[in-house]
């Protein structure tokens, strides 16, 4: 098979911007440069545009009103605002926060930071599929728990959390539920009212919008305070002149996602299943990371025993394929992925993991190509590895 072209299967790391989104943004960079805060006519168009984007995002997640959407610089800021903003404002009610051990760093690190400021933080364990333990959530929820922060789905292993059940448990006590939907938004339907979510982190680029924009949904009545102080934009919760072109693009991306999600996610799920099945069938000693069915449509996370992820990525790259890995050797910290370790994998098992995340441009032909090149890549690296069992080398 010939190399079709460069194949990009690293969509959790970054997505291309949709051309319709780019189109919508352009006039807000060229012509409507006014400040939405201004009283004069130049402020009017940007102000309207902000409103429209807010409505589109509110509609995507079925928020009760557009004012519940606060624009930020991205998911990291939204997570920080949700966690620190709720903790600081509600410290009088309690100082206990619960999160899970497989959250993104922009959730884990604010929680760890709050720990140094006198808050107690519980990190819930997950099972081998990466599903948060509901029993331990029930056990750990106390009268002084003010916030539970969990992700909608995990970008690294694809596992979708039982958010509705989590919400029911959390709301038996007096705590708020914050959900980081960065990996899930635009891929699976999210309904903050049905799901019972108090705060929700959204990211623009993860929906093929521009980078550097995000939002935090805050249900009416949630007690929260800002972490950025200044001119009082975004109902005082996020000061700083709004990134109007970015927000317009984000709104357009949300509109497209709402319209096309069902069909596109079905298509992606089919490609995902084909890729996973193809890899597991053609490579001995390969395993799926994450949940087999409660799984993001774009996520094919597979690990190959006896070899290391970075050398797999280099080999894939030589064949024109871009993917990522949770191996210690690919991390700046030289630690294996905390997500994979939390699911109970051993260090050397986490080493051989490769993450393919699919996107709108990927085709079935590309999936077939990846399946066709993987066995030889693995075989070659296994021949180099001292860990490969002798029997395996003789019959593959």
């Amino acid at each position, binding site marked *: 098979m010939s190399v079709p072209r460069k194949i990009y299967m690293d969509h959790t790391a970054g997505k291309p911007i949709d051309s319709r989104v780019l189109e919508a943004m352009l006039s807000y960079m060229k012509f409507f440069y006014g400040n939405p805060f201004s009283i004069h006519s130049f402020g009017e168009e940007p102000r309207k545009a902000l409103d429209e984007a807010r409505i589109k995002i509110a509609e995507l997640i079925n928020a009760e009103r557009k004012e519940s959407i606060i624009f930020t610089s991205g998911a990291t800021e939204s997570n920080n605002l949700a966690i620190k903003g709720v903790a600081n404002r509600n410290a009088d009610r309690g100082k206990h926060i619960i999160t899970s051990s497989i959250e993104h760093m922009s959730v884990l690190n604010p929680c760890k930071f709050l720990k140094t400021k006198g808050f107690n933080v519980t990190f819930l364990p997950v099972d081998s599929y990466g599903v948060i333990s509901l029993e331990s959530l029930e056990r750990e929820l106390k009268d002084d728990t003010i916030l539970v922060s969990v992700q909608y789905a995990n970008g690294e292993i694809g596992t979708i959390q039982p958010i509705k059940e989590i919400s029911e448990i959390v709301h038996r006590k007096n705590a708020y539920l914050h959900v980081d939907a960065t990996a899930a938004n635009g891929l699976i339907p999210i309904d903050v009212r049905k799901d019972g979510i108090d705060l929700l982190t959204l990211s623009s680029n993860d929906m093929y919008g521009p980078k550097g924009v995000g939002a935090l949904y805050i249900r009416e009545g949630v007690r929260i305070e800002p972490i950025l102080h200044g001119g009082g934009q975004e109902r005082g919760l996020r000061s700083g002149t709004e990134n109007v072109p970015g927000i317009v693009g984000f709104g357009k991306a949300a509109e497209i996602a709402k319209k096309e999600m069902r069909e596109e996610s079905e298509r992606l799920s089919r490609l995902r299943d084909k890729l996973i099945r193809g890899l597991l069938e053609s490579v001995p000693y390969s395993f799926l990371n994450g949940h087999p069915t409660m799984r993001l449509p774009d996520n094919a996370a597979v690990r190959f025993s006896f*070899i*290391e992820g970075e050398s797999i990525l280099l080999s894939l790259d030589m064949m024109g394929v871009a993917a990522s890995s949770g191996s210690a050797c690919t991390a700046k910290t030289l630690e294996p992925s905390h997500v994979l370790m939390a699911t109970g994998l051993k260090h050397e098992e986490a080493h051989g993991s490769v993450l393919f995340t699919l996107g709108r441009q990927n085709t079935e032909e590309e999936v077939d190509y990846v399946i066709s090149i993987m066995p030889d890549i693995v075989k070659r690296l296994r021949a180099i*590895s001292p*860990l490969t069992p002798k029997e395996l080398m003789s019959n593959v």
Partner: protein
Amino acid sequence: MYSEKVMEHFKNPRNMGEIKDADGVGTVGNPVCGDMMTIYIKVKDNRIEDIKFKTFGCGAAIATSSMITELAKGKALEEALKITRKDVADALEGLPPIKMHCSNLAADALKLAIEDYHKKQKSKEGAS
């Protein structure tokens, strides 16, 4: 992120494999990231006549093991012992700073293999 030389050795590693009746074997684990490397040597007249490696690790680890076998092959044992991780990195036209620890693996594994050879020699002498 890697030099052409590193990629070349990654693509076509030299002296990869095992030596069944090796005179010395050295295995090290990488304490930093958890990887592993084994070096086998065959010694004749105090020279490294043959050398092979097996590596479980990143691209840099595979390339450094390949490179050190090239550098060590044919050398007298005392000379081979003097090969440092810096020599390996230089021969590869440099390594990214975060990957320097991988070149430790190669230098250490070679040292252990030579030590193992000396140990075996001693016990042989003791036996005869």
